[in-house]
């Protein structure tokens, strides 16, 4: 049985965390329902009045968010390279150049297709 101890432990912790946070928030949290609270959470976008036939959100915010993620992830890869710059040498340098070029391709695409024009 000890074989499964880590797995069972993990399952228990995960279950406790998931169920616990729901329970705790309903028990501890204030129960003041208002319109804003019942609205779906939309990543900071001002909830728009729902038109007939289901809600559609402006896509601009998501484009910006995705652009952010592109550069965000770029940093994650750049950082270790910067730490080991000496040892990685020319290979590392060229690899990073390639990487940055590739990263800029979707950026170029977004720019050319008008993704950066706010209106």
């Amino acid at each position: 049985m000890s074989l499964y101890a880590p797995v069972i432990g993990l399952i228990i912790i995960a279950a406790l965390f998931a169920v616990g946070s729901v329970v705790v928030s309903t028990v501890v949290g204030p129960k003041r329902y208002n319109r804003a609270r019942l609205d779906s959470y939309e990543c900071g976008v001002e909830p728009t009045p729902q038109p007939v036939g289901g809600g559609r959100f402006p896509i601009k915010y998501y484009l910006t968010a995705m652009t952010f993620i592109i550069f965000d992830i770029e940093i994650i890869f750049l950082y270790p390279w910067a730490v080991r710059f000496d040892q990685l040498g020319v290979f590392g340098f060229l690899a990073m150049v390639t990487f940055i070029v590739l990263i800029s391709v979707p950026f170029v695409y977004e720019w050319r297709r008008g993704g950066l024009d706010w209106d």
Partner: protein
Amino acid sequence: MISTYSTLATAVSTQAEHGGQVAVEATGIYSWTWLLIAFPLLGAAVLLLGGRRTDRIGHLVGTVASSLSFVMGVVLFVAMLGEGDAERAFTLDLWEWFNAGGYQVEVSLLLDQLSMAFVLLITGVGSLIHVYSIGYMEHDERRRRFFGYLNLFVAAMLLLVLAADYLILFIGWEGVGLASYLLIGFWQHKPSAAVAAKKAFVVNRVGDMGMVLAVASMLAVFGSSSYSLVFANAENASTGWLTAIGLFLLLAACGKSAQFPLQSWLLDAMEGPTPVSALIHAATMVTAGVYLVVRSAAIYDLAPDARTAVVIVGAITLLMGAIIGCAKDDIKKALAGSTMSQIGYMMLAAGLGPAGYAFAIFHLLTHGFFKANMFLGAGSVMHGMNDEVDMRKFGGLRVAMPVTFATFAMGYLAIIGIPPFAGYFSKDRIIEAAFAENWVYGICALLGAGITAFYMTRVMLMTFFGARRWKQSEPPHESPSVMTVPLVVLAVLSVVGGAGLLYLTGDIVQWLAPVTGEAHHDLPMPLALLVTLTLLTVLAGVAVAWGMYGRKAIREDVPAGNPLTVAARRDLYGDAFNEAVLMRPGQYLTRSLVYVENRGVDGAVVGTATAVGGLSSRLRRWQTGFVRSYALTMFAGVGFVVVAMLLVRLP
């Protein structure tokens, strides 16, 4: 008998071929055996792919293709006669089909005495029926297609009997099934034809399962499905496996040959054009099951239990078919019942082992002659009667259609077994062999002969004798000579076929012996007594029929009949049986699975969601469609997989 088995078993173990014959590589003329199949296959391709351009010459192309194959068959036969008695088996390797997972299949043909007999029957009777169809289908605008299907059938049937590997045989097996299916449903504008085609298809699939299982078992036991390897190693396999293979093969044979319990499709198959009924559902395809059993002699010899099953199936069908034949007013259905019954005879004989294999084939050949003859005769009657099939509306046709009557009469005398007509010789042998094996089998066979005489006399009397009950304005006319000539040829064969195969061209039993083996049986009574007994039974059947249908006028409405007649009219409840045993459980399974797919899972989700209470409303806002149920299924699956993985190690 026991000693015969052991002798045979020794023979099998020492020789590659059953019965002591070794197949050699085909050379010279034999290396052209593939042409037999190629001619009709090419014909089918031209007719089916050629489109409307070939409409005008379609029937000629089809007939020529089939006839060329027949000529080739005769050439090979003559060449074979020149060989030594036990040197008449040739294998022809065409190409290696595949070699997967250690399972190798060569596309190769085996031409020996058994397949030769079939080649001549298929191409000979087949060509005659092609000729007949030129007249019979003259006014059908899809005649070209009809001939294309017929050619396809001939090619597939030849592949079936020439294959040297069970898997190749299976291709031919499916091919004839396809052609049969296409031809039963040929007049698809009739809903009954479409339904009949579907039924034949479905029932045959059940039989094919047997074939697949048999091949799979061979693969498991012998690692091969080629005749030579399977037969040579049969000796080393366990009896359990051999019995299983034998039973699987029997299941396959039952499907194709309309034997109990898979007999129900044959009667409905009469919806097809009459030449089809003659060729496929009387003379050739339905006898493929008998071929399969006889070809697998090496397996059945070593599996007595499987052989007993063959005999029992044969005996049951023999009586069942005969009883159904007695009650049908549709001339083709009466003949179809008769076909079932006669194939039952063949099965019974084949199940008797080496004592009966040759007789089964002998009866198969003579039956091919006289039954094709009678079906074509029935077709000729229908042709003259505006496609009427109800015998209660016939009567007195012997004057209007003299040739049809005369040829039909030959077939009639042959089937009821009056000497010296063909059926006498072949059926009598089977009755003898049955009595030698077991009293019960013998009495079944004898009883069958009596009933056969009864229902065939009934057909004869209702159709050709008595008062004219037809009401059409112009009197029925005799068919054109393109139809009567094949009738005459087949009638001659019905007369001389039996004696001819026994005495004129050499003994058919001797001819087949190198393939089927031989065994002599001791009759429990003097032969003369048995022959007399058989003839008396037959005459009794004729007399009863005369009493019921000859002396009294035949009613045009259908009399109520006793319970047995009612049951027989409904094919002895074959459909009800199928429905209860095969169809219902399948439908339940399908429905319940679909129910779980559609509703069960979703219901579970709803249940869970309700249980979680307040969460459900928020969940529903976030959800579209039923992704939730899919995700829940997946989640349950994840749980299942992980638990399954862990449980394996737990003990």
